[in-house]
């Protein structure tokens, strides 16, 4: 008698297709966690690095943590704010946190 599989067979993926002719709108939100944003609730607190076009500019609803340069800063923001940042012409990009560990074997 064959062993029972440890895992059930998987169904096909649900695909959320792009809606524009360009084959996918370019997002300003980057970093590995950006790919998982659909999994994140609207009120989830996020941290990231924000790059802007205008020195000193901090978008509304974004809490600056540390100024790295006049146009680059670390920030707290909520998932809900990302839509507004996507539309903000003075925001170049937002990179959500990437985890880092010691490089010891």
């Amino acid at each position, binding site marked *: 008698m064959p062993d029972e599989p440890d895992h059930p067979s998987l169904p*096909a993926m649900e695909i959320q297709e792009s809606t524009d002719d360009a084959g*996918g709108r370019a997002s300003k939100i980057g970093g590995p966690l950006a790919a998982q944003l659909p999994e994140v609730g609207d009120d989830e607190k996020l941290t990231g690095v924000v790059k802007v076009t205008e020195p000193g500019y901090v978008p509304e609803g974004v809490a600056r*943590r540390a100024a790295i340069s006049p146009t680059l800063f670390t920030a707290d923001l909520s998932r809900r704010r990302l839509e507004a940042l996507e539309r903000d012409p003075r925001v170049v990009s937002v*990179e959500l946190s*990437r*985890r880092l560990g010691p*490089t010891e*074997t």
Partner: protein
Amino acid sequence: MYLEETNIYADMDPRLQRVLERRQRGLRTLETAATSSDEIGVIALVRDLQAWRERGDVREGATLGETGAGWLVTARVPIARVESIRQAETVRSLKAAQPLRPVLSATVPEINATPPQLPDGLLTVGGEQAVVGVVDFGADFAHGNFRRGDGSTRLAAIWDQGGPTDPGSPFGYGRRHDATAIDAALQTAEPYLALGYGPRPDTPTSRGSHGTHVMDIAAGNGGGSGVPGVAPRAKLTFVEVAASDITWEGEEVVGSEFGDSVQLLEAIRFLFDEAGTQPCVVNVSLGTNGGPHDGSSLVEQGIDLMVQEQPGRAVVIAASNSFDDGIHAAGSVPASGAVDLGWEIPPTVAAQSELEVWYPGQDRFNVELLTPDGTSLGSVPLGSNGRIRADDGTTLLFVSHRAADPNNGDNVVGIFLEARVPSGTWTVRLHGEQVSDGAFHAWIERNDQSQSAFAPPHDNTHTLGSISCGRLSLVVGSYDAHKPAKPLSWFSSAGPTRDGREKPEVSAPGHDVLAAHSRTGTGVTRKSGTSMAAPAVTGMVALLLSEAAALGRDLDAAAIRRLVVEAARSDPPATGGWHDRYGHGRIDAAAALTALAAPGPVEIPTAEDATIDA
């Protein structure tokens, strides 16, 4: 003063003679992990192995092998029996075990950084006019290597990012401990308790904190262990990175020794702010596998921006330890064709597995995912997401296919498999829909609990860490300085960057390095990794920055980088170019300091030394 004759056998191994002489004077040897205080470890050459083993005064160790003259063995023997054992019929030779060379003796002399090796006429000693900042986990401020002769601390500040927040917290979180608070804690019987900060105690699987070890290599003064690091008089600052607060990444990350890139940038900002106008080099022995690997990430841009704010700044980063992990793949997708990537998920996988594929923005791939039994789960076009949910609604598998990353314009695929998906070799099939270039690189993210890998054969190039591809950082590979051939450490990651730049820049000893052991006061412990190589370069840069300050010379980040690179030695690596793991060669502190002192412009930029726009 006079010489006294003893009755100890003059033809005995000098170390054994010394032990017996001490015993005659009533002195006891120290107990070690393997030897009690009235024993000594020995290496013996014996004629008859059985006769040796049967001796009642021999605590057998290892049998190392048979030579033409007998068997080579190790053992612990009572000091009182040494003379008797030595004269036994079966013993041809008996020597005391040599103590392990304390500590950094395989790093500092190897990089030509001991005082006698350094050039004559230096204006500063031990990096005294520079600040060494360390971003890491576990600074043992009580270890003698970080205290002055009077017992006071050498640390100007520790920012414990995970400490309790108070009105003075840098950037609104954690606690900054200044030298006064550290010194007050050092006056107590329980300094870690008094300060509310300290390295974790050892566990059965972890001896000594990473940050203490790293800081000692760069700038320990030997006050505890007896052997100094590379820049023993440098000023010290330390940032204890908070455990990652990316709560939605899963419990395997939260609470572990993983910080994140935002905390890292803030740590470097803090260290440079603390240093003010003093020259400062920051060591970062942290990393993971993913990322664009072209220096375009905002964390790498941020590091580049901070080091070029003023002269006298550098950031040194470990290359990473992923060379042998099978975490990189590359290739070219043909128009209207496809390329398969095998992705091996181990049966014991205990956490999410994650893979990234980066390819040029002018191309368009379609990403198909197949299970280990060959079933296609569908394809995800550019700009779309794919997902499979479990019966309870949670996600089992997620595929993101993003167009035009905002920082480099490239497209990126992210695939996330939860631990509940079937193990075995999955297939990521890249279909070329619109191809003008077709080149791609893929990385599997680090997972210390159950690392997945690409199916062999592996392409171990481009295995630098996620933050190790910046334009102005100094990235360091590791080799084994204990062996005459100075071989590469098996783990030391390879360059180049995805955009073809020559990183790592240099290499340094990072294999079996003995350096400060936290919570011991004076002890050392052994660690390996590019984590241990980077601080050797950090210490060397501190020597350069200190000397440059005394000479009144401003060294910008590009000039520092060039001094380190141009002084690097070959053989190994082979002469005449850059090696993808040794970099431009093995560092040489004496040569770099000599070059600094020589007349001539070291500040002339080259095309490689790009300026980063703020």
